[in-house]
């Protein structure tokens, strides 16, 4: 028992720049990194009700501390958010004399899609600044992300984890003082486009449709507070943390091309430029200094996202494997 405790404490002391419990934000990454050589796994689910059906997402994350200041991750995601082809009504055209009149519109929501493996999202985080004090630290990290997600996402807003392929990057600044942790994440998302098919309005073969999503800027503010224990007695004590996260995004208008050559005017808010801030209150417990279980719910605060409905329920479970302890 004492040997185990000594190993845990020694391990913790050797990980300068690693993570404190109240900065393990449920929806955002802190500037801290995973210890070198440590593998982490995380399973998350996200659910919301869209009209009469539930949209669900499950993501498995594999994390690895490549160096003490460089963490790499791979996310594998499955969801029933979208199909392989675009829904009827998103982009269409009518005939007016000798001309085709192209248009985009609000399509039916709540359509049933099968669960699809959407793709892989790779993420790397490099901590370049670290100032540690007594029960406090300030850390900064740069992150980069690449995704090959390929589904018929039908809104302008890009999300690399499960909606759009592309890449992105940004800066994370995390401050921890006693029981409180605050983190700011700001970055850009440069999404790719998706080539799919749309139903032909006159019953012909499906129409080739390319949707290019809007570039986006994201700005997240996460606040975490260690509720319990007020003072550590041993490392096996469960932690209870509460969180309040504000997740904002501002994105450009999407563009649609049909038949490879015909631009379709954007006439629906789903594809127009937009911005919003969601708020996610959450709670988390950490067992044996390792097993992390968190739950949070998202609501619209300023405007709203068209890429999901509200409330959004998120659940996560995470564990580290300290391989070289053996």
């Amino acid at each position, binding site marked *: 028992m004492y040997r185990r405790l000594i190993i845990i404490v020694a391990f913790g002391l050797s990980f300068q720049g690693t993570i404190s419990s109240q900065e393990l934000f449920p929806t955002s990454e802190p500037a801290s990194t995973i210890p070198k050589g440590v593998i982490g796994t995380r399973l998350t689910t996200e659910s919301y009700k869209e009209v009469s059906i539930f949209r669900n997402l499950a993501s498995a994350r594999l994390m690895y501390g490549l160096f003490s200041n460089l963490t790499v991750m791979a996310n594998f995601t499955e969801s029933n958010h979208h199909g392989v082809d675009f829904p009827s009504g998103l982009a269409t055209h009518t005939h007016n004399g000798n001309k085709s009149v192209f248009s985009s519109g609000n399509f039916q929501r709540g359509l049933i899609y099968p669960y699809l493996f959407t793709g892989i999202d790779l993420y790397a985080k490099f901590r370049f600044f670290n100032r540690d004090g007594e029960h406090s630290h300030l850390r900064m990290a740069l992150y980069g992300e690449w995704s090959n997600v390929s589904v018929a996402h039908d809104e302008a807003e890009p999300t690399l984890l499960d909606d759009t392929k592309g890449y992105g990057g940004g800066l994370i600044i995390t401050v921890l003082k006693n029981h409180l942790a605050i983190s700011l994440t700001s970055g850009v998302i440069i999404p790719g486009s998706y*080539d799919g098919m749309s139903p*032909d309005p006159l019953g012909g073969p499906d129409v080739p449709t390319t949707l290019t999503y809007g570039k986006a800027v994201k700005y997240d503010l996460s606040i975490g507070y260690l509720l319990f224990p007020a003072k550590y007695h041993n490392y096996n004590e469960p932690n209870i943390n509460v969180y309040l996260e504000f997740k904002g995004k501002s994105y450009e208008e999407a563009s649609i091309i049909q038949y490879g*050559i015909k631009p379709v005017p954007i006439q629906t808010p789903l594809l127009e430029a937009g911005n919003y801030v969601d708020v996610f209150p959450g709670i988390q417990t950490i067992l044996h200094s390792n097993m992390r279980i968190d739950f949070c719910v998202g609501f619209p605060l300023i405007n709203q996202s068209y890429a999901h409905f509200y409330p959004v329920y998120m659940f996560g479970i995470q564990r580290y494997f300290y*391989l070289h302890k053996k």
Partner: protein
Amino acid sequence: MKKIIAFLFLASVTLAFNSCCKGGSGGNATLNCAIFHHSKPIPGATLYIKYNATEFPGTDASSYSDHKMAANNSNAISFTGLHCGDYYLYGVGFDSTLGLPVTGGIHFQIKYSDRSHTESTNVPVTE
């Protein structure tokens, strides 16, 4: 750990096979194309093909790798001897019932597993 390494190895091999695919001639795949304006077949249309392309190359015929013309009573055109990989198809025809030219393009990918097969696609066109 061994399972993770095995998975990553298999994923790398799959990616490597797919990245070997580069659209072009000299292969064993056949691509059968049919040109439609909505549900109406467009006979006598010309179909341009650009090898190793995923996006519309433009309307200049010299931008394309090859082209074929359908028979006057058919909307079908075939390209043979293709490798697996990406192709961009651009159809140009005439809808005689409307009295208007119709055009349209589509990206098509022949997968590695279909490198010796016959694939089919519609090429929808519009006025």
